[in-house]
């Protein structure tokens, strides 16, 4: 099952969706300057 093309496609699509989600979250983080907060607290 893990070698099937279907699984690959599903994984890829999941990857894309997760990337999109991370990207949107990153944009929101940038808007609220949370990266500075995050890296500044570190």
């Amino acid at each position, binding site marked *: 099952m893990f*070698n099937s*093309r279907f699984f690959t496609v599903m*994984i890829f699509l999941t990857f894309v969706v*997760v990337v999109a989600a*991370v990207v949107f*979250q990153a944009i929101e*983080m940038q808007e609220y300057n*949370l990266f500075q*907060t*995050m890296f500044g607290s570190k």
Partner: protein
Amino acid sequence: MKVVNVVLSILILLLAITSAVFSYFLFAKRGQMVDGWSKMATAINQTATELDRNSGTKLAAELTPAALGHDQYDALDGKLAKLTAQTKQLVIERDALADALRRIGSTVEMKNLGSEAAFRSLDTYSTNKDDVINGVRDAINRRNSSLRNLVELARQNLKVSLDEKALQSGDRAAMEKLSGALQAIAKRRDNYESGLRNIAGQTGTTGLDFAEDKYSASTGKAVSSVKALKDRYNDTNSKLTKAQNDIKNLESTIANRNNEISNLKKTVAGRDNQLNELKRALNIDTTQNLPTPWKPGSEEARRALLGKVLEVNTHYGYICIDLGKDTMVYQQIGNKTEKVDPKVAPGLELVVARGNLDGEQSDFVARVKLEKVDNSSSIANIPPESLPIQVGDIVYYEAAK
């Protein structure tokens, strides 16, 4: 294929972890933002409450924290617009009040009045407001002080009692009392001026001008003219007294003269009687006037002269006439004949005529002047270019024409 799947799975896991971390931070931020929204809503409500205080509005009831919550986002624009509108209205009201306060300060003629911005600015409005209040108070005090002084002056100088309180409140009747007193004074002054002009006119002085700068000179002029008239009156009075005294003296004199005349009349009457007696003695009618006796040397006496030429000497040019110093003429007064001396003297001019003087036939011969007069004769030169004089020619005196 399997490798790709594994790689993709690992990447997905990493991305999921990243997403979880991002979610954590975003969740915290969301909490902050919700709290902040709530704080903002509360602050807006408090602001609205302060704006409503003594404004007669009820905006705070609309802009409650609940009504402004993040879950009421759709109605937010409408509600916030009301807050902006009310704030603008309050700013307009503040500006109007600041301008009104400034105009009040200008009306009471305050010095060093602040600018419009100073009355609106939060930092300086209080100081300027206090300045205006103090300025108005000072103005009222000055007004009251002036009114007090006016009331006192009216009482002292015009004997008019004014109500200070009524004047402070602007009572027209109180001021009309003062106005009436001043009008009475003005009327009295006009009467005085008219009277002075009349008096001066009676004394012959005209053109008096009672303007402020000429008042003193004009009253002095009027006084001077009355003084001059008084002096003339006194002078006339003394002359009149003197004249009355003179009249008394003259009356006394007249009385004396009348007595004298009376006495003289008696004397004249006596003399008239004497004259009449004399006339009767002289055989003159008493109704006729007594002839006036000729005086010696008078014209009448000389006219009675009548002589003759005794001698004519043509060689030496003289004639001799029978008139001399002792020659007399006779005046008939009544039945008496009065002898009068005609005073034949050198220089007497005589006329030589020929013929009968009693008749109409007598011819003029010459006019001669006596040069030498003896007792009974006299000598006269023969005038040149005269008719020949003959012995026996008549010589008489002719009065000068």
